[in-house]
């Protein structure tokens, strides 16, 4: 239409002003900050790559990085794997499908803080859910959060929390597959499990890919559950990049170094998203 220019500006300007000032500008500023040694306010000196050198030699940061990567592996395999199995199963039944959809999805709406608190109660030594079950069955109490186990103990609620999300995505994808495909397969004598491996899974590969990329990039955003359940401990054994970044920037007042850790998180996220996209590209099947 004629004379749209003014309207285009009026419609777009407020939204892009807000994101510009409070999203894009801080994003760039954060990169710049990573080259400074600063507590954020009084002392601020340009130190070039010093923060990055520090990052390379920081053992806790390395541990946090490896913990994040390890979590990523568990989360991708189990979240997407369990979701896929559940989606195929729910798709195969008629009665009760609605009930399962509802109950599988709802952990997603609960805040990480509440789930974190819930799991601290579940893992509690004295009267946590797990130990009470053990005692009722006649076993000894177990100390659940140790240096060896803490990472698994935060992986479990993380996985549990989001299985429903991938379940809904995959179930929707499966239900979109045209019925003719299955009828044709039936005529060719393909049945049961084969139908699953030769038909269903290849046809939802692109959705599986989406799930995997989301699971991988999502892991880098993990903060709440770890912060509440273990605070990264004991002895940094469950520290992840998010909690370590928070600690450095806001508890140890090393804002410059915190910014450097944030840069690491972003770079890692971009690289992993790019690599998984590339790796999974070949297998795409469309209908």
């Amino acid at each position, binding site marked *: 239409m004629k004379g749209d220019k003014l309207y285009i500006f009026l*419609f777009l300007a407020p939204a892009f002003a807000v994101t510009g000032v409070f999203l894009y500008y801080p994003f760039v500023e954060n990169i710049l900050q990573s080259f400074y040694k600063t507590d954020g306010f009084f002392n601020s000196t340009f130190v070039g790559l010093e923060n990055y050198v520090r990052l390379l030699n920081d053992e806790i940061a390395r541990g946090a990085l490896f913990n994040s990567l390890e979590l990523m592996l568990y989360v991708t395999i189990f979240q997407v794997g369990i979701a896929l199995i559940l989606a195929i199963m729910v798709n195969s039944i008629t009665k009760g499908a609605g009930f399962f959809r509802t109950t599988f999805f709802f952990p997603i709406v609960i805040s990480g*803080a509440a789930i974190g608190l819930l799991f601290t109660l579940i893992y509690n030594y004295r009267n946590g859910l797990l130990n009470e079950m053990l005692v009722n069955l006649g076993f000894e109490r177990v100390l659940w959060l140790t240096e060896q186990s803490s990472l698994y103990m935060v992986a479990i609620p993380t996985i549990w929390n989001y299985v429903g999300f991938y379940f809904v995505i995959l179930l929707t994808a499966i239900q979109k597959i045209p019925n003719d495909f299955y009828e044709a397969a039936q005529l060719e004598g393909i049945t049961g499990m084969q139908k699953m491996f030769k038909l269903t899974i290849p046809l939802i590969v692109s959705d599986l890919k989406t799930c995997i990329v989301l699971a991988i990039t999502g892991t880098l955003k993990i903060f709440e559950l770890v*912060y509440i359940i273990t605070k990264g401990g004991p002895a940094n054994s469950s520290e992840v990049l998010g909690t370590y970044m928070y600690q450095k920037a806001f508890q140890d007042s090393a804002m410059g170094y915190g910014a450097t850790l944030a840069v690491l998180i972003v770079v890692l996220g971009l690289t992993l998203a790019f690599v998984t996209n590339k790796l999974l590209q070949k297998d795409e099947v469309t209908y």
Partner: protein
Amino acid sequence: MYSHTEERLTFWEKFQERYFMNSKAGKIFVYVVLTLWSMTTIFPLAWVLLNSFKESREIITGTFNVPSDPTMQNYINAFETVNIGKSYLNSFIISGSVVLLVLFLGGLAAFAMARMQFKLRGLLQALLVASLLIPAFATIVPVYRMMIGMDLVNTYLALIIPQTAGNLPFAILVISGYMATIPKELEEAAHMDGCGRFKMFTKVFLPISLPSFSTVGIFVFLWSYNDLFSSLVLVSHEKVAPIVVLLSNVSSQYGTDYGLMTAAIAMTIIPVLIFYLFAQKTFEKGATSGAVKG
């Protein structure tokens, strides 16, 4: 060699025919697995709810028992000792404002992105998609400094503005995606009737796109309500802190008061669960549409 594999296949086929999907046993197996998983989602919540009506002593002695003498004391304590009512209010003020701002600003921008032609469109679209990859970690240090500079830390605005900025790209993408599917004829007819651009937005596109607005609204509310990280940094003072910050404090300060803890968890979860049960369809649709955009 060949016949060997074939034999194995037939065995495999027989196995699945008999034990998976097609048989009664297969059906039972499927239902058992599905029921087990739904128990993992229901049981912990039921356990918390059950214990929230017990005295702390009874939680310790019989955590699985039905409360012998149901009490509201834990809930009363939650209101009196940790002032949970105030954090509730803070949460709703903050998240409510974020949702309204995101829908208003995002709706306008989405309309322009979807229905108007201009040179920078492609670039802005790319920028929006890229911003979905910016985590809160990557902006929080400068945002914190800006908020200190503007003397806004520990006010509602300190959280409302950055959360609005963080959620706008998602909102614009989802709503403009929806608006783009509306037939051109409608726009032309409205134009014939003398609708200007602004009226066209409010009278034609806004009402038709309401489903996308509600999807976005629900998700933005949820993300905002659940966002502990930014809240800890920007609004940790109890006067303005939302409920998630209160929860993280409760665990460190009152970690041994199991009654209080369970009541606090229950009170955080119950409103969103009720909300979810009412808006379940929209939630699930949003999950799939959001995923495709991400």
